[in-house]
């Protein structure tokens, strides 16, 4: 799947009208100079040759050079990628409990106003534009109350002074014992994570409700009830645990989409992750970066789908390979 997307993107970007090198260089400089840069970046070779060279380089972890800076950008890319993962994890930490709670409520109190409220909540959170919600939070907590930072990831001094063990700044601060730095990282993660988390929780809520209700009307639940087991135990042990399988599946898929929807959140909060990196590259027509970023997304989606499949197989006793 990764290959397909990669190929699509690669050729689409090459077919485009306009000369990306000239764009990157600016209008003042002579054409010979543009040709020189083109040659330096390997863009004057036939497209097919470029394609295979690119695949070969990718396997060796070489993403190529950015058209704008004409430097290799693999380090920047990975750095941004890790920041996005931090945001994704933080958002999931917000989204899952919230979503499960909402789903649980709407399943348990089926037909009553509380459940209706919960159901409406899921629909509403999915419909809300994440950047609008983000702006509202920024205004409330950043401007009016002034207690949380409006934009940005961890502040420069924190990022610079922490010893990079894993490359994930938040984690590194903890591992280094830099508690202040850790606090700063968390502060900058709160608003974007909550914003994105709320939006995602809607979907999780909806799916978990469906899964729970589905399970609730299965035979063995009725049987347990007939045997006289207290409702609470039925709920916890039978219903919830068995509904977990489809819920986890969906959560896994959401993680992949999370990385995508995060672009808007990152832009709103100016969070230095893969989303803003991709957006900047797209706007400045830095094709090599765009390609690499999309490839990275594709890889993420593939990896997560794979993991979800494994987890699913592990959890569902009916599937055994």
């Amino acid at each position, binding site marked *: 799947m990764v290959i397909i997307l990669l190929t699509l993107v690669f050729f689409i970007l090459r077919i485009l009208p*306009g*000369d990306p090198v*000239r*764009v*990157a*260089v*600016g*209008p*003042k*400089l*002579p054409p010979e*100079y543009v040709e*020189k840069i083109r040659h330096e970046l390997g863009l004057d070779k036939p497209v097919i040759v470029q394609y295979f060279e690119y695949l070969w380089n990718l396997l060796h972890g070489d993403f190529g050079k950015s058209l*704008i*800076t*004409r*430097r*290799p950008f693999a380090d*920047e890319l990975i750095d941004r990628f890790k920041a996005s993962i931090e945001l994704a994890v933080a958002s999931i*930490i917000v989204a899952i*409990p*919230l979503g*499960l*709670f909402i789903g*649980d*409520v709407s399943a*348990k109190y089926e037909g009553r106003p509380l459940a209706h409220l919960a159901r409406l909540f899921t629909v509403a959170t999915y419909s809300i534009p994440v950047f609008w919600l983000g702006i509202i939070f920024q205004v409330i907590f*950043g*401007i009016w109350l002034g207690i*949380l*930072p*409006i*934009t*940005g*990831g961890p*502040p*420069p*001094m924190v*990022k*610079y002074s922490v010893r990079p063990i894993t490359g994930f700044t938040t984690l590194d601060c903890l591992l280094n014992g830099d*508690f*202040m730095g*850790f*606090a*700063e990282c*968390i*502060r900058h993660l*709160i608003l974007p994570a909550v914003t994105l988390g709320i939006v995602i929780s809607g979907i999780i809520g909806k799916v978990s409700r469906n899964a729970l209700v589905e399970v609730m009307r299965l035979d063995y639940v009725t049987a347990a009830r007939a045997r006289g087991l207290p409702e609470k135990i039925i*709920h*916890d042990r039978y219903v*919830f645990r068995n509904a977990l399988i489809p819920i986890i599946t969906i959560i896994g898929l959401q993680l992949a989409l999370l990385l995508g929807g995060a672009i808007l959140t990152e*832009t709103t909060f*100016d969070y*230095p992750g893969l989303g*803003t*990196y991709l957006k*900047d590259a797209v*706007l*400045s*027509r830095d094709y090599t970066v765009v390609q690499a970023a999309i490839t990275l997304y594709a890889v993420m989606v593939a990896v997560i789908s794979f993991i979800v499949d494994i987890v699913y197989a592990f959890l569902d006793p009916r599937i055994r390979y």
Partner: protein
Amino acid sequence: MSKKILIAVILMAVIIAAVAATFLLQKKEKVIVIGTTDPPVHLDPAKAYEFMSCEVIYNVFDTLVSLKPGTLQVEPGLAEKWEFKDNGTTIVFYLRKGVKFHDGTELTAYVVKYSIERALQLGGDPSWLISEFIENVKVVDKYTVEFKLKEPFAPILSVFTFTVFAPVSPEAVKKLGNDTFDIKPVGTGPFKVVDFKKDQYVILERFEDYWDKSRMPKVKRIIIKIFKDSTTLRLALEKGEVDIAFRHLSVEDLQALKGKSGIIVEEKPSLQIRYLVFNLGNFTIFKDVKVRKAIAYAIDRDAIVKGVFKGATSKIYSLVNPNFEWCYKPVFEKYDLERSKALAEAVKLLRDAGYSEDKPLKFTLWYTTDHYGPKEADVAQCIKEALEETGLIKVDLRGLTWSEFINKLESYEMECFLLGWYPDYVDPDNYLYPFLYSKTSGPVFSCWYSNPEVDKALVKARQIADLEERAYYYSIVQEYLAKDVPYIPLWSQNQNIAYRNNIKGVSLEPSMILWFWPLDKS
């Protein structure tokens, strides 16, 4: 089950809030944070051509000569003195002794020669400034270096103040390689680069062995933080997350900051010019000078300067920036009549050119949506409405991102567009020669203006050293500019800066460079 989850959620929220609140306990060390929306891209003098990249480089590197603070005059830098020989075709620089690079190596004439030749060989964006004027570099002795020019060029010393001429450490280049040197450069300047994350931040630290003790930085560390827009930058300044906000606060944000206690706002004219370009080469529509003159009459600079920019810009009446008082001639003022008169003139010219209400002048005005800030679309709309007031013009507006705009510029596809200019070297020659000289007017600006009289005057003016004579030739050129109207100069953006009142040493230079070494925080 749901109760358990709820409890877990609340507990988590409380813990996170507590963790986050600990930041209040943080000690503040003496660091100055400069916020900007303009990101540096290259920190290698051989590659840097964007403003902010050069801004950082000016504080991390030195040049042989530099601009005296507060003026546009040249003063000694790494070179103690210099002399011209052979009728102005050779310059000899005598270097200071004992100047050290951040990595401890010494500055010599060999290093200067190496740096210049490296910049040429790498062929980065700014290298044309060397290849255009310099024939070769020669080492005379360890501290004496000689440049042979291609031809005598009056403004050559101001050319030498540009970052591309800054010496780099050969050892460092060898050790790091060109790509890494672009992120972790090694120069002779008062600050060294400690970390650079593109589009995020640059961290600078004071260089304790800096040669010029009178310009030792007052603070140990300076952080340049990049913001995505003016609003977040202004909010950060208000909250104290940032000490100085430099390039580019929007007009509204600047106005809002002016009233705030604890914040100082400064504004000064800049070296920038903004103008309209007519493509005379690929399109016939503007071939008739009456059409161009009509547009010059119909354009309303006030609507732009007062309406769009609320006074944060000034009107200009020539391509030469008004800062060059000795030669600026407001030649376009004759078009800036009282509105009804101006419109009447425009209408007359258009009718003469054969246009009428049924057959109006139709063309597309192109502009870029991001490079010059978000107000560009409003400017375009202002121009459109001003021109359409004549009743004989129909303007179609097209906005492109800078990338797309450059593409169209390079392929000479736009018949009329808005552009800007900031000088490569501080001399009126750079405001007239590239625009009006027949060999560059087309390829660089897509204008294709060609007038042999203007060519002659331009060449003469760059070869003579005497300011009065040069002013004479430049006045000839500017008169032609207003007569032939290949461009319409419109406005110049003021440069501005806002900072917290406990910061000292901030000064807006005519050259638009912000020096970091005098900055201090109390």
